[in-house]
């Protein structure tokens, strides 16, 4: 049966800590800005694929039975510090900023 979605509080419940850090790193990794051209779109898709693979690895390690807080932190840092090829993609936001 389909779930119903009441819009109710209490809001975010994830406390600060390694897991929250990992979730924020995943969001950063996957939130790739919208592209400008078809070429940028292809680059974005490739980047998305690479990022997804990195996230899957990090989440798998975090879910392992022997995962430690230090290990989860390390994975989060790894996601944040891995090569960021998004800098080479022109995004709608950058194009709009440039036009102003």
């Amino acid at each position: 049966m389909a779930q119903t979605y009441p819009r109710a509080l209490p809001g975010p419940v994830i406390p600060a800590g390694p897991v929250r850090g990992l979730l924020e790193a995943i969001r950063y990794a996957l939130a790739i800005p919208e592209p400008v051209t078809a070429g940028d779109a292809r680059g974005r898709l490739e980047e998305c694929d690479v990022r997804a693979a990195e996230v899957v690895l990090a989440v798998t390690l975090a879910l392992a039975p022997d995962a430690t807080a230090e290990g989860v932190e390390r994975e989060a840092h790894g996601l944040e510090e891995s090569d960021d090829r998004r800098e080479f993609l022109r995004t709608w936001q950058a194009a709009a900023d440039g036009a102003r």
Partner: protein
Amino acid sequence: MTGQDKTVAQASVDDTLSIREALEAIREAIDIPHAATVGDDKIRAEIMEHRVMHTVTFLRGILDSDRPAPDVPWATGYLRDRLAEHPATGYVTWAAAVAERQAAERAAAEHAAAVCGMCSASGATEALDRSVWTALSDGTRTVRWLCADRPACTGRRFPELAAVLGEEAGQ
């Protein structure tokens, strides 16, 4: 039970479970099989884009204070429902293509090793329906394969006949 009713220990256990569920949902969202061909990869990319978008929205809901989701289990359920709308199907996966190729190679190997039901030579290449074989012989043997080169096969099976036919052809 509301958040205020939980004991500290119970809340901790529940929260750990719900965060674990959230991480598993994220992994399910983006761990989709690789495509076999360039054409399949285009379909996969579209699916992946939708699933990543919903994952990012989910993460905003549970992390941002300005866009609060009611709670992590609710948001996880919502994400899973959105993922169900964009299932990772409709393209040939790399694993499926490899399995198909391996099956074809196994069939080819079996084929190459097949023994002709007529002359007993190995490497018979034509499958022969049992009913056809029954019409050709006494029907007591089960034959699956037959040589493609029928005159050579007949020559091996009936050398005397082949010699006679050869003499006739020579005359």
